[in-house]
């Protein structure tokens, strides 16, 4: 189902939970609404479901305005954060509920329920009650219950929030495959970016009730549209004070005295920082001199903190196969790329001193990025 949201507003008292949010979702896409807690994601989801009425703004399903249509008639499936399974009903009754509401034949209900139970791998539990199931199993039942009446839009509110970290990872992949199998348009809310990146085709970043950016995870990571997105998605070094960095002559334009210009923020991704011990002659040319202040082992990489000559501290990760650095080592710090967010413009600056030599990222085929703006 194609979904369009226009200037959606929701106020609770004086507080605007959602403030003019607009976006579109293509049919069959699996979209993550990602943002910090209290950013209005859940309000948007609930308004799409019809559980909450917008204060202003319109919602269209396949071009049809659905604002006046009650929840019951919107044809959606909703999975609640804490599952909201009916405690006094068995697994079977829970899954069959939506079908019974539709007054389907008993035979058809049985078939559909068993089909779904098989799909979620919970055959044999149909006569159990929710309190007899584990968290992951309950989540699956909630999922089957929402899917049973064949909704055209599936809405998931923090679907994995209440599940153990270990099971969560497993469930994510399972959910992704299941949704792909059904091809149902799906929107899920999460504040966990790993989860969002892993599951979603498309991300909508929501903050303070506004849509900050929409696009494929790849695009959002590499082309953040705002300082908020740059700092929220992935890790970043934020340059607090302006420093002159070799290879980035453009930076001087954003400086005003000893400060950045009003409203300007500069970020460096850790993977855009290359560290080389100074005794390597070939890399010494274009780097900033720095000193390692802290190193610790993270399992898949070394976490390294380095202090530049100007007193600024940056962090990065050093692959395990590269030579191990130690605190106190002098290094050459080579910065490949940085993000500048200024009121006037948003730029991604590449290091000029090694221009054309090597690009940090190899972009995937355009097909996969079709969801971006």
């Amino acid at each position: 189902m194609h979904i369009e949201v226009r200037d959606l507003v929701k106020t609770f008292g004086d507080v605007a939970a959602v403030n003019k949010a607009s976006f579109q979702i293509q049919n069959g896409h699996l979209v993550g609404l990602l943002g910090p807690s209290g950013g209005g994601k859940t309000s948007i989801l609930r308004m799409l479901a019809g559980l909450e009425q917008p204060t202003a703004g319109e919602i269209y399903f396949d071009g049809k305005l659905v604002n006046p249509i009650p929840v019951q008639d919107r044809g959606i499936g909703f999975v609640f954060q804490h599952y909201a399974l009916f405690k006094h009903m068995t697994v079977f009754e829970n899954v069959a509920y939506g079908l019974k509401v539709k007054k389907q034949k008993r035979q058809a209900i049985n078939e559909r329920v068993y089909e779904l139970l098989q799909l979620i791998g919970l055959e044999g539990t149909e006569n159990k009650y929710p309190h007899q199931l584990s968290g992951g199993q309950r989540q699956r039942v909630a999922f089957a219950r929402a899917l049973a009446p064949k909704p055209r839009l599936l809405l998931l509110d923090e679907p994995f929030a209440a599940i153990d970290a270990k099971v969560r990872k497993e469930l994510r992949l399972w959910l992704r495959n299941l949704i792909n199998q059904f091809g149902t348009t799906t929107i899920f809310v999460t504040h966990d970016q790993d989860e969002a990146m892993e599951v979603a085709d498309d991300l909508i970043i929501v903050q303070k009730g506004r849509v900050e950016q929409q696009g494929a995870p790849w695009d959002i990571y590499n082309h953040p549209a705002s300082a908020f997105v740059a700092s929220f998605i992935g890790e970043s070094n934020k340059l607090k004070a302006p420093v002159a960095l070799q290879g980035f002559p453009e930076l001087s334009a954003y400086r005003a005295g000893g400060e950045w210009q009003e409203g300007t923020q500069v970020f460096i991704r850790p993977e855009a920082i290359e560290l080389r011990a100074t005794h390597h002659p070939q890399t010494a040319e274009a780097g900033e001199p720095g000193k390692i202040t802290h190193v610790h082992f993270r399992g898949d990489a070394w976490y390294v903190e380095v202090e530049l000559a100007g007193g600024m501290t940056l962090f990065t990760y050093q692959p395990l196969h590269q030579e191990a650095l130690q605190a106190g080592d002098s290094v050459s710090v080579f910065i490949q790329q940085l993000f500048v967010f200024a009121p006037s413009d948003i730029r991604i600056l590449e290091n000029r001193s090694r221009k054309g030599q090597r690009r940090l990222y190899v972009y995937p085929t355009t097909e996969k990025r079709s969801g971006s703006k």
Partner: protein
Amino acid sequence: MRSLFILLTVLLFVLILVLPFLGILAGAGAEGFAAIYEALMRPESLHALQVSFIIVLIVTLCNGVLGILFSLQMVRGPWLAGWLRPLLNAIVDLPFAVSPVIGGLMIILLFGPNTLLGAFFENVGFKIVFALPGMVMATIFVTFPLMIRELVPVLTELGQTAEEASATLGAGPIRTFFRVTWPSIRWAVYYGLALTAARAIGEFGAVLVVSGNIVKQTQTATTLVYQDSIDQNLVAANSVALLLGLISIVILLFLEWMKKRKEDQLHAH
């Protein structure tokens, strides 16, 4: 030290709670079982029990239905935002603080034969004070908060997501109430009903004032006990009291049994 405290407590309970009840048993049985039977089978006691029964029935029904409706509104009504909700909450509790006698006085002051409202109702042939309607009103006044106080915390703790889930699956409000909400609040409602019934049977002060305690007309079981004890007809008084006491104990045991069910239901996750 510890056993001393236990002993003290047990002694206290026996003295304050058990002994009086044994007293009433002894008092009723002083002239044998036949006397108890005879006292209960007097036309005035049969009539009084019947009046009590009617009042309990009406009051429990009224408070049951309206209590559920009001509790839902008080917990979820969006129109009660701001100052209105705490105010209504406080008003619901007021009857707890009112002496039953004063509760009766209120009904007389409002609907007595000398008042505007009372005169109006009397003109249309509807007698309130010294008649059943007044007694029902007085009992409702006294028992009104019980159901709501029982349901409001349950509804608050329950939350709304199960009902929302039902709505997203296409169910209308009536189906949602009976299939989803009702099974979750059922025991709390039964508990509230039992409390209300217990209080309604036992209501004395307010009913005494409003009813005028007219034998074989507006006399209830409790006011009959009072009348008999004032008339020094102790065996008769104790017999009716014994019956009422037994009913109370049965309800109490029933409540105790239900309390567990109610908690199990709420916390079954």
